[in-house]
């Protein structure tokens, strides 16, 4: 089984970096989607099957908190695992997001090793 992953971040280079790190990690990937903010992510999630969402917190138009809240409130989306990938290292923020229903929290800069461990923990190793 190969996975579809959505990367949500307003920084082009952050998305480029995460996409490259996921590819390097040798994960079983089918599609890598990208969105620049929470609203774009929600729009994409309505039309594409996604197995995992990796999202930043601070974004224009709709930030990561709101994205998570909306996903959890939508039947179609509430069981999709969400992992935060953020520059915010505060324990309070991590606790907040965990309480809001995210399954993982990675602080930037993330490494291919961090991503591989997190994706495999949540989705399994998959197969080509």
């Amino acid at each position, binding site marked *: 089984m190969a996975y579809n992953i959505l990367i949500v971040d307003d920084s082009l280079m952050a998305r480029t970096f995460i996409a490259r790190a996921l590819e390097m990690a040798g994960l079983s990937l089918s599609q890598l989607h990208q969105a620049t903010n929470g609203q774009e992510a929600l729009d994409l999630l309505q039309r594409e099957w996604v197995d995992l969402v990796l999202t930043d917190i601070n974004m224009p138009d709709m930030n990561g908190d709101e994205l998570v809240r909306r996903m959890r409130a939508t039947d179609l989306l509430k069981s999709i695992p969400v992992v935060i990938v953020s*520059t915010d290292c505060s324990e309070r923020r991590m606790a907040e997001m965990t309480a809001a229903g995210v399954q993982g929290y990675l602080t930037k800069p993330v490494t291919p090793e961090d991503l591989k461990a997190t994706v495999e923990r949540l989705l399994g190793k998959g197969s080509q």
Partner: protein
Amino acid sequence: MSADNIQTLAGTTIEVLESYAFLLGGPSDAKKGPPPFADPSWLVILAFSGSRAGGVGMVVSPAMARQVAANLAGTEPTQVSDEQARDAAKELLNIVCGKYLHQVGPREALFDFAAPACFVVAREKAVQYAGGKPQATLEVEDHPLLVFIEN
């Protein structure tokens, strides 16, 4: 913020440059001074609010920003656009700020980050903007980098 924090900001910047941008940097040579700043330079600033309000910034050369973007993408600087280079500089400061605030604390603090802004400015104006603020000049693989704390 106290002058002590500029050392933390400089140290954090060096660590992030190594771990994220794959660039080696350090304090500029006290006798020689840093390489001259590019003209124009890019002034990147990031404001934060929440438990306390403030900001950090840097004066970076377009060439260094281009190198950062190339390193992140695993490509060469000649293959990087200005847009990618500006974005890379902003994301670099974003990560530096997050780690810096986590270090200077307090632990229970919570911050909201504004989107980083990047301005193309003449060298003199960039250096003048940072003037009077706690600042440190680094040398990053032959590029100068000035980091400062907004006051």
